[in-house]
């Protein structure tokens, strides 16, 4: 009996230790790894400019809550934060849930961050609605919050002092423009409706939904200019936001939007397979790293993308797989953000706030279209992380 009690207590202790250690240790280690492996070439022009604006940091300690460490995108953001840390003499601790769909876990981490009473918090929210109460608490405790990567539009007034994000709507529109340009002639000469696909990893985060809608609205705008009608079908969240949606039966272009149950590559690839298997599909867009990799995974079997294929593909963000696809022509290109600059600016802005300086409410960072010919350009290459 005593043996059983000891074993049970030991097990409980083991579980408790692991739960407690899980988030922060992982984040600290990953950031250290990322810093040593990726810091060298990433001194982009933008990053240098942004340091001029920042002031020396003093002994501030910031808590950073990212969406997850799932993709290398977040590692690039942490590289930027490490740069800010060295230049400003601040410290930070980064945490994030295991997956971008672990919304409740992230809210817990945010609450823990608030309870540790840091000088400020940098937040990339998994769900723009779920963090509102926590932001109110941060406001009550007078802890300044800077959102980066993803905005929280309904945040309690005064809680989020600045938002450092890519103009996601514009970035999505950029992809829409490039894809439309590539299939314009095909649309013009089509005798039957054609299909353009869009795979979004979720319908809960502001950046993905803004990006998805940016793409959709741009395609509709360009198609209308050419006298074509577009019917947006698929995921209710996205379809519901389209104004004057045409009926599928009357449309020249069917824009099919797919969202998987979880933010994983395999589920994104199943959704992509479905669209790419349709005989009338002429183009597909994966709106972030996970979704774009899902499209590429589906293409391994279907082999319909690229110069010899029947479907034009484009992605978003970078990572070794997407870079290889752009480089060999499987994707006509992709839009990359500046995660490094975003991470760096988030901490610089927090430092400025702590120093009592006034900061811009919205600090936009750039999204760039890159293809096989522009991947090595000076303003693009630093943002193409592995």
């Amino acid at each position, binding site marked *: 009996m005593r*043996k*059983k009690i000891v*074993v049970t207590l030991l*097990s409980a202790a*083991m*579980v408790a230790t*692991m*739960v407690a*250690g*899980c988030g922060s*240790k*992982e984040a600290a*280690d*990953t950031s250290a*790894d*990322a810093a040593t*492996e990726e810091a060298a070439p990433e001194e982009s022009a933008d990053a240098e400019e942004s340091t001029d604006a920042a002031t020396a940091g003093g002994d501030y300690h910031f808590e950073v809550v990212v969406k*997850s*460490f*799932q*993709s*290398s995108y977040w*590692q690039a953001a942490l590289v930027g934060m490490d740069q800010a840390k060295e230049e400003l003499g601040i410290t930070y601790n980064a945490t994030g*849930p*295991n*997956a971008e769909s672990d919304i409740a876990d992230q809210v817990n981490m945010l609450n823990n961050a608030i309870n540790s009473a840091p000088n400020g918090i940098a937040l990339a929210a998994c769900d723009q609605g779920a963090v509102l109460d926590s932001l109110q608490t941060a406001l009550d405790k007078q802890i300044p919050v800077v959102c980066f990567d993803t905005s929280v539009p309904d945040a309690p007034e005064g809680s989020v002092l600045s938002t450092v994000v890519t103009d996601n709507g514009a970035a999505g529109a950029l992809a829409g423009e490039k894809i439309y340009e590539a299939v314009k002639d095909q649309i013009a000469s089509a005798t039957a409706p054609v299909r353009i696909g869009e795979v979004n990893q979720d319908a809960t985060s502001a950046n993905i939904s803004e990006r998805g809608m940016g793409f959709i609205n741009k395609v509709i705008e360009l198609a209308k200019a050419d006298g074509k009608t577009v019917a947006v079908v*698929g*995921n*209710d969240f996205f379809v519901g936001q389209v104004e004057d949606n045409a009926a599928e039966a009357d449309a020249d272009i069917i824009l099919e939007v*797919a*969202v*998987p*149950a*979880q933010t*994983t*590559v*395999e*589920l994104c*690839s*199943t*959704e992509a*397979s*479905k669209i790419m*298997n*349709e*005989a009338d599909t002429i183009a597909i867009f994966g709106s972030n790293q*996970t979704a774009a*990799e899902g499209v*590429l*995974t*589906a293409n*391994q*079997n*279907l082999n319909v993308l690229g110069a010899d294929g029947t479907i034009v593909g484009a992605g978003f963000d970078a*990572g*070794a*797989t997407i870079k*290889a696809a752009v480089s*060999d022509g499987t994707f006509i290109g992709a839009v990359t953000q500046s995660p490094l600059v975003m991470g760096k600016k988030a901490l610089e802005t927090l430092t400025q706030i702590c120093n009592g300086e006034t900061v811009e409410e919205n600090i936009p960072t750039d999204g760039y279209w890159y293809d096989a010919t522009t991947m090595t350009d000076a303003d693009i290459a630093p943002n193409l992380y*592995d």
Partner: protein
Amino acid sequence: MAKENVMPAVQKKSPFGKLKGQSLIVLLVIIGLFIFFCIMSPSFRRYTTIISILDYSYYIALMAIGVAFPLMTGGVDLSIGTGLICYSLVGGWLIQVHGMPVGVGLAACILFGLVMGAINGVLVSFMELPPFLATLCTMMVNRGLGSVIAGRAISWPVAAAPGGWFRNIFKITVGKTLIPIGFLWVILLVILMSFVLNHTKIGRYTLAIGSNKEATRLSGVNVKFYHLFAYVISGFFAGLAAISYSAIFATVQPGTGAGFEMEAIGGAIIGGVSATGGAGSIVGTLFGVFVFCLLKTGLPFIGLQANWQQIITGLVLIGAVLIDIIKKKKGNA
């Protein structure tokens, strides 16, 4: 004399004929679902769709074959899902970051699987931790360990790159046709493990432990060893599953994998492995896995949105289990 007391009890609990009947029902469900999806979606009726279903089935099937053994002892192994991702991250990290040959990465997957399986086995068998708790702990360890070691998303070499040969283990291209040879390996492993289960001491004692552990021990069987071995088998197959996952998917993301084990465990139970131990079939397990994979691939094709896909999958699985229970009750009557 002592052994004779155990073996008939096992035989009585898992006569091959009875399980075959259940496997047959699951097979009919698979055929029914396949026909349904073919009728509902023209784009589903393609050769490449079958390849996709097989692609997504390998890692679940391999995990399921392995986890069937702990299940048949009356335990469970929850660590295989996050384990798969952890082993794949470690293997890929050795290749990508340390420039080691792909063979080393593949071996690392299997080695890590074996070690983690052995740890689970020791915790359950020798330290007598409840299997659910022990493997829940190692599941969490795996989830963090992969992230800590690899530190970021890992891409194994793509097919065209040096070292990309390993992707041909599961799929080769002859002319312009894709041949899913991974399915052949899965079938061979099913035959091998069916033989192990039904005709070797390892298999028979695994079932005996699940049927009545105390009686098996009193019969003179080294229960601790065979109990541990069931978890080693599970770990080994999680290692193989890691290889198949790395070969099929472009990138392995840290922090993922939780939930994979449920598809494998669910598949095994639908396929006739008793959740309380003592009975099971490897062939049935494979069929059970295909029910999952068909639903996972087929439901998006009929235009069902993500949340509905999960609801329907849950309902179909309840249906499949109910058919089994009803059939068993009729059999007992």
